């Protein structure tokens, strides 16, 4: 998933960037609200982690701006004070959950996963499509109860397609899931990855969940639950 992290403290920002990256997310980490607004305008994000105590434009104002620009991705706020005034104001401005500093990374991850799951309409931590089962917590896919050996990139593409099942997903969007920013943008990489993914998913039982929509992108045809 592509995440936007807005945190002014460089060390914490770096820590979040690294740890969330290790968990298989593509992270864009910025230090202030203005940069965050720019990023949100330029790219598609699946979730944002926003510190309330930002210098300049506050976290609260940033959330309000994002929501007024019809950005619907879930937002998790980080608050140093941990008082209810902040929490109530933050969630009223449009955030979806809060976490008080300092936090254990596991807790942050659990909250993020819950928010991501909820935003794509799933209530369980697994997504099932026919014989295919995706465990969102363990980042593991099984086909007919057999573990699938997927690389991190292949898993990300599969998870994204399944979360947006029965929707056409553009190649650019998939690219954003793999790389932050504009660097290394080569559409062929996606084609190669999707090709490898298809070979691993499609067996003798006729299960062919990923279609190519020419000129537009890919479509996960199976209904996911």
């Amino acid at each position, binding site marked *: 998933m592509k995440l936007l992290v807005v945190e002014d403290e460089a060390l*914490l920002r770096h820590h979040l960037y690294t740890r969330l990256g290790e968990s298989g997310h593509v992270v864009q980490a910025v230090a202030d609200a203005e940069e965050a607004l720019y990023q949100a305008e330029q790219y598609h994000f699946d979730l944002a982690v926003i510190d309330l105590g930002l210098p300049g434009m506050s976290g609260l104002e940033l959330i309000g701006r994002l929501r007024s620009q019809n950005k619907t991705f879930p937002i998790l706020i980080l608050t140093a004070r941990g*008082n*209810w*005034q902040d929490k109530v104001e933050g*969630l009223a401005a449009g955030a979806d959950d809060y976490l008080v500093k*300092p936090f254990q990374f596991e807790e942050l991850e659990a909250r993020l996963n819950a928010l991501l799951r909820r935003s794509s309409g799933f209530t369980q931590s697994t997504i099932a499509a026919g014989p295919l089962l995706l465990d969102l917590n363990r980042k593991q896919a099984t086909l007919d109860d057999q573990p699938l050996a997927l690389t991190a990139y292949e898993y990300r593409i599969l998870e994204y397609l399944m979360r947006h099942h029965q929707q056409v997903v553009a190649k650019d969007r998939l690219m954003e899931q793999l790389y932050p920013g504009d660097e290394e943008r080569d559409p062929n990489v996606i084609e190669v990855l999707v090709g490898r993914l298809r070979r691993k998913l499609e067996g003798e039982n006729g299960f062919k969940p990923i279609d190519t929509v020419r000129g537009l992108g890919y479509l996960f045809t199976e209904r996911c639950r």
Partner: protein
Amino acid sequence: MIRSLRVRLMLAAAVLALLFMLALLPALQKAFSLALQESIEQRLASDVTTLISAARIEHGQLQMPTLLPDERYNLPYTGLLGYIFDRDGNLVWQSRATADQNINYRPRYDGRGNEFARIHQGDGEEFFVYDVEIKLLGGQSAAYSIVALQPVREYQHTLDGLREKLYLGFGAALLALLVLLWAGLTWGLRSLRRLSRELDEVEAGARDGLSREHPRELLRLTGSLNRLLHSEREQRQRYRDSLDDLAHSLKTPLAVLQGVGESLRQRSGEREQARVLQSQIERMSQQIDYQLQRASLRKSGLVRHSVQLKPLLDSLCSTLAKVYRDKQVSVALDIPEAAQLPMEQGALLELLGNLLENAYRLSLGHVRVSLEEAPGQLTLCIEDDGPGVPADQRERILERGERLDSQHPGQGIGLAVVKDIVDSYDAGLSLGDSPLGGAAFRITFTLD
């Protein structure tokens, strides 16, 4: 001890007026009686002059006309008494009005001229006497004492009447004075009453400070009070701002340290150090949270706040509904629309936030908030249908820093903060069983 300023002033003024009148009364009576005596003396002198002008000497004998020019001498019982004595004190003439009088008066012809005196009779009767000695009468030498008398009785009667009128007049004046004084004080103290009303409004949080429309004498007081109010408000704001800064500047580094600890934990050789680091970070964080919250939720000294409960609960519930969306908790708010609690907004928000989050976290799906109003008492009750708290642990979990559910994420200081807030507002906190099946927290406020 008289506590009313108005009653004190009234009492002091009444005593002063009374003392003043008591001192004035004898002086007035004295002055009047002197004036009366003087007028009596003048009248008697004129009576004597009438007698002298009527008297004639014929052949060395005093001759008085049968009818005197003043009618009153001619009639009996008029009270106008005239006598003429010769130089040896023998009565030679007396007016008709003296017929029934038996006055024991013997003038001494000693050449001292006129004399005004007051004489006592054996029967207790008193008379004013005006005694004139003459040496010449109608150009002939003659030595007579011409005496006019008037009973003191009449004078005394007039004096008594006057005294009675004086007492009545002074009493009425005192009464009128007190009534006027009361009205004046009411008018004068009206500004104090307005000041007290404005203070009530300030205490109730309905106004920021006292108005400037007070009498000059009070302006210094209201000015000082306004400055005090302003500085208290500003100080609280500054205090809160610096606490926020402190929280941010302490807890963000802690979050960084937490991250470092987590990285350490991934290396097999340093797992133990990472564990120590993390437990210390958690301890510091809890302490910071607890102390900062405690410091920021101090009750204000002057202003008595009151908050509408329903809107606050609504915003808290919508916050928690968002956070616990997966749980689908249904909340029953059994709160009258206009219900108010005697607390500051921030403190009430922390109190309810902590208790409600507890309820949301532990409940299976039902939470109820209700307010019971009894005379002089308000009880706010927050219940859930969770596992509840065993009776023997209730006392302990209300203690500072205790947490019963270490498996749940949370700051662990929630209940300690709740207890602190409840204590600072002199309210009561109790923990019992709820009919829903879980815990029931009751906060009881005593209203003054």
